[in-house]
């Protein structure tokens, strides 16, 4: 649960006013609603962005007619169109699974946002092994796609889902290995800790610049992430030129759009993971936040007890920086899609099994030897900046739920709890 300024979670805060059960339900509702906005609004924006970017790359304008100058209402118009469409299911389909499968993909891609922190303490669920959990959930979206392809009762859909399954099962391995490299550099599986460690100047503190291996690992991670959200050049699951539309050939209307919602949300979530692990999380990388740190103490218990306006403002700034970085990475994914041609399925598997897995294994080995080598030669574990361990100690104050650790509570906060 998100942490308020005084070291209370939102749940504890609400429980102080409304009782345990109601407080819990309210906290869950608030978190779910906020996350659902990120989950549902960002795909609408990215679909519009994809159209504009692809238009520019192909030397045309993209949508211009709907919604004024930039065609910004295009996604809304599409949404209205999709809602109106008839919800068809083929006669050969396994009706029950066919109708269920889009929701499975949707739920899996939504659940990742549950463990992603958007700013200091701003996560729906703060747990210690959140990186591990996020990777586990990212790999679950494939289940909905396999079931969709199988239950459609169509050859093309089955081929698409089989390819997706083969691709996802292979690409999970380098994805996890590359995510493990920054985890090993920090020594924590907690997204919040990993992001807090990267505060300050970007060249010394961001984990992508931690050592040469993390630098390469970022690019390997990003390649694999594109494959794991089945975007071109790895979009074999829906390869239009070969498989009609792949796994969603038989879908129409809202169920079809759920797959796209899930895909674009997954693009954002893997980018968020990349930003948290490599690109400094919600820190701007200029050290500006260190100057602004006193602001966190402003407006304590304003407007209500247990809430701090200054802290909220800084967290809001952090969340904007975080989402901006993640959106930049999504833009790169779009750019890649409209620049590179699609690989063949055997080339996709070769890329993963023969190149990406050995590369990520070598990176993992190198990243584990790097601090040892530096300590032996230079006497310090890093080339630039303060050792991660120092920063880790400071960061660990912010990186867990206050109910679990003994964060000092103000008397006012205690009062709210009672």
């Amino acid at each position, binding site marked *: 649960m998100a942490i308020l300024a005084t070291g209370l979670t939102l749940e504890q805060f609400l429980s102080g006013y409304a009782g345990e059960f109601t407080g819990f339900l309210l906290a869950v509702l608030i978190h779910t609603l906020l996350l659902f906005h990120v989950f549902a609004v960002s795909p609408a924006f990215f679909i519009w962005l994809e159209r504009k970017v692809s238009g520019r790359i192909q030397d045309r304008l993209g949508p211009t007619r709907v919604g004024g100058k930039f065609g910004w209402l295009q996604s809304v118009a599409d949404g209205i169109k999709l809602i109106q469409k008839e919800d068809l299911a083929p006669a050969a389909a396994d009706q029950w699974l066919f109708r269920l499968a889009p929701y499975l993909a949707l739920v899996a891609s939504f659940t990742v946002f549950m463990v992603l922190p958007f700013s200091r303490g701003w996560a729906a669920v703060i747990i*210690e092994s959140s990186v591990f959990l996020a990777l586990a959930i990212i*790999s679950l979206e494939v*289940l909905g796609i*396999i079931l969709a392809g199988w239950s459609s009762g169509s050859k093309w859909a089955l081929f698409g889902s089989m390819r997706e399954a083969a691709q996802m099962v292979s690409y999970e391995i380098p994805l996890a290995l590359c995510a493990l490299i920054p985890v090993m550099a920090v020594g924590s599986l907690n997204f919040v800790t990993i992001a807090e460690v990267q505060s300050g100047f970007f060249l010394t503190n961001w984990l992508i610049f931690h050592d040469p291996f993390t630098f390469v690992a970022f690019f390997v991670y990003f390649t694999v992430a594109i494959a794991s959200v089945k975007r071109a050049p790895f979009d074999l699951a829906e390869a239009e030129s070969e498989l009609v539309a792949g796994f969603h050939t038989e879908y129409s209307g809202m169920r079809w759009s759920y797959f796209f919602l899930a895909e674009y949300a997954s693009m954002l979530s893997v980018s968020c993971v990349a930003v948290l692990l490599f690109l400094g999380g919600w820190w701007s990388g200029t050290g500006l936040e260190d100057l602004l740190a006193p602001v966190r103490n402003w407006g304590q218990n304003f407007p209500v007890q247990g809430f701090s306006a200054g802290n909220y403002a800084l967290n809001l700034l952090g969340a904007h920086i975080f989402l901006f970085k993640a959106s930049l990475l999504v833009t790169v994914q779009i750019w890649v899609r409209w620049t590179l041609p699609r690989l063949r399925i055997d080339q996709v598997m070769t890329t993963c099994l023969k190149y990406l897995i050995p590369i990520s294994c070598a990176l993992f080995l190198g990243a584990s030897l790097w601090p040892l080598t530096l300590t032996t030669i230079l006497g310090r574990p890093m080339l630039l900046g303060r050792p991660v361990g120092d920063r880790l100690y400071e960061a660990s104050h912010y990186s867990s739920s206050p109910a679990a650790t003994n964060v000092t509570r103000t008397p006012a906060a205690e009062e709210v709890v009672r």
Partner: protein
Amino acid sequence: MTVLQFLFAVFASTTCLGAVMVALTQNIVRMAFWLMVSVASAAGLFFLLHADFLAAAQLLVYLGGTVVILVFGVMLTAGGRTRSLSPTGGETIVAAALALSLIMLLLFTVGSVDWERLNTIAKTGQVSPTAAQPKNEAEPQLTESSPTGDENSPVLGAGRKGDTGHALGSAMIGFRPQWNRENQLVLGTGYLLPFEIISVHLLVVLIGAAYLARAKRQLPSSRRSPDATSTSLLWDQDSAQLDSSGSANPALSQSSPVRDDLSRSQNLVSGTGFSMFTSDPQSPNSGEVS
């Protein structure tokens, strides 16, 4: 009813519902779906117990791994007999005997646990029921200022709710302090050796699977028999054909390399590499090779 009890009721009932539906459903893919429900709810139960690492591992290994493999197997054997299952009389008897013995085992296990003692441990963090006595000063304790402080365990982060990762990691490398029945802190055995043994086992399995899934090499003179389709997953016929045209029959492959490539890519597109769609013994692929 507290929040925890409510959530426990939800997850426990969906776990059981999923398990029962796996047994009752006839269609294999629907079975896989219910298995997913059951396994995911079990992960929810682990989260409720603040065993976050275990829950994530449950999701990754059981839900993400096993079910994908299960669905793979189902799809490659789909059609015909395996599409829906109805056990014969003998199978029902054997299954019932197995299920009964499993239930007996579980009941005996539940009955033999000293729940009173476990409850005391959970409440006081001490092993013996007489836990009220103050603890020895010499016992290792982390200081109050430490962010991962915990009054009972010297393992880093062991006191944090849900932080089972640190404790598991320490135990993995051999540092597993625990309270014995005399309320003393002793160093238990670690799990490094079992872990390594399992890793080597898995490596052996991996190599064995790669060997089995490898395309079968043919003798130069032998015709490719219609039922020689190997059961590997995706490209068995293509790779077999490549093998035979590359090594076994060089003249043919030299005469028609372009055509060979074309048919390969057509196979990938049309998917004749799938064994489930190659019921036709004279598929264009095998005909060309022979």
